[in-house]
């Protein structure tokens, strides 16, 4: 194994210093090796073309229980390593079976029917923030509650419990959390959702968890354990990503007043703006991890079975061959090839929901708050040191 060969390799992950993703110099090829905190080494791929090849390839597995899988944070010895129900850690054919239980729920047509609810949630949050006086923390009053309320509605999780699951979600994603605390947070999330699923089985509602419990668990297609794992994933992914995107997007728009002015004048630019924000920010800064299941090649580099690879989405989304001047934010770019939602069969299933939330949240915000401004100097904005990139707080006036 080449794990013992290379020395002087950079330590991964690189951390979140600010809006610019950190990246070591890997040369024109953009391929290198990194040292993981777990003692393993892994390949690092950063070029758009290489990520397309790697993430579409059946030669790599997402199953973190496989030997050699690159773990980017230490996990406690006694932590159960079970991919059960957590789609992002599964391979076909199990992955295909589970994903297809969800595809009709998140398809574009279905999400469109949720748009009135999303808009109402956005408007209520904005007006309540406005009524509360300024300055106000946009994260606390808008960016976090909106996606949280929407995913709660979709899943059938009572929003009244948001403090409980948001706190555990925060611990789970923070780099600074000790492994034991991460393990406890996961177990508490699982216990919480286990109780909720039992309640929904006895008294079903018009929500995804009730439907899956009745149509998939009761029929034996999915175990209850798997529904718990899937629900944990959907609850965390459903609010953390979009909420961080709303906070960061607001910051980026305020830092580009000329482009913000154009967007206010021409509201139809919102779709392109959302795509460019997704590309420019790429909040899954840690990239995607895979392990080779057979000897294979990516971009001419030979990778042995059992070697770990990391696909760095944030770097691919700034690849100059695909996005000239990619370090610049330009809402006119037409960033259709970005990989902010990943690539391959695991590409974000909730992307229609994320796009709808971002489009509606940002449009309503800039319309209803025409004087929106940062209440702190841009350099004083503090970023989250977490698996999902974001701002800790965003004090604003209007």
């Amino acid at each position, binding site marked *: 194994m080449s794990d013992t060969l290379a020395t002087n390799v950079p330590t991964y992950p690189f951390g979140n210093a600010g809006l610019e993703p950190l990246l070591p110099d890997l040369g024109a090829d953009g391929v290198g090796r990194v040292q993981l905190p777990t003692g393993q080494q892994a390949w690092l791929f950063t070029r758009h073309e290489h990520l397309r090849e790697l993430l579409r390839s059946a030669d790599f597995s997402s199953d973190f229980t496989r030997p050699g899988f690159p773990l980017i944070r230490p996990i406690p010895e006694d932590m159960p390593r079970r991919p059960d129900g957590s789609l992002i850690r599964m391979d076909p054919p199990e992955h295909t079976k589970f994903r*297809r239980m969800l595809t*009709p729920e*998140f398809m*574009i047509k*279905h999400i469109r029917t949720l748009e009135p609810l999303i808009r109402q949630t956005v408007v209520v949050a904005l007006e309540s923030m406005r009524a509360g006086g300024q300055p106000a923390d946009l994260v606390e009053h808008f960016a976090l509650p909106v996606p949280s309320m929407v995913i709660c509605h979709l899943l059938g999780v009572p929003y009244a419990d948001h403090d409980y699951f948001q706190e555990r979600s925060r611990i789970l994603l923070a780099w600074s959390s000790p492994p034991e605390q991460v393990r406890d947070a996961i177990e508490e999330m699982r216990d919480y959702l286990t109780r909720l699923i039992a309640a929904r089985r006895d008294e079903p509602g018009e929500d995804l968890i009730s439907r899956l419990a009745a149509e998939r668990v009761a029929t034996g297609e999915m175990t209850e354990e798997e529904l718990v794992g899937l629900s944990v994933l959907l609850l965390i992914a459903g609010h953390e990503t979009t909420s961080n995107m709303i906070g960061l997007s607001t910051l980026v728009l305020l830092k580009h007043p000329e482009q913000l002015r154009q967007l206010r004048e021409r509201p139809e630019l919102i779709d392109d703006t959302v795509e460019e924000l997704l590309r420019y920010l790429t909040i899954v800064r840690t990239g995607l991890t895979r392990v080779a299941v057979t000897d294979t090649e990516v971009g001419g580099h030979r990778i042995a079975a059992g070697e770990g690879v990391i696909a760095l989405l944030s770097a691919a989304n700034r690849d100059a061959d695909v996005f000239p001047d990619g370090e610049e934010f330009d809402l006119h770019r037409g960033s259709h*090839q970005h990989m902010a939602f990943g690539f*391959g069969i695991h*590409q974000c299933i909730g*992307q229609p929901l994320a796009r709808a939330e971002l489009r509606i949240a940002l449009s309503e915000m800039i319309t209803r708050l025409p004087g929106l401004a940062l209440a702190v100097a841009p350099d004083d904005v503090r970023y989250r040191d977490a698996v999902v990139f974001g701002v800790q707080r965003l004090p604003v006036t209007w």
Partner: protein
Amino acid sequence: MSAPLRVAVDRDACCGSGNCVRTAPEVFDQDDADGLVVLRQAEPPESEYDAVREAAYNCPAAAIEVTEP
């Protein structure tokens, strides 16, 4: 007159991301029952060619095959 551009989709490979429907809604749809790709026209008009090529390029599961004229 040259042969038309032809589109084929592989529903077994499809992961239901909906990218193609966003890019070329005249050519692709999602099945109401399972959310997987449905081809609306296998020989789209020339005005759709660019959108179809982009949909194939951006399909995360490589489930769209385009045969150029």
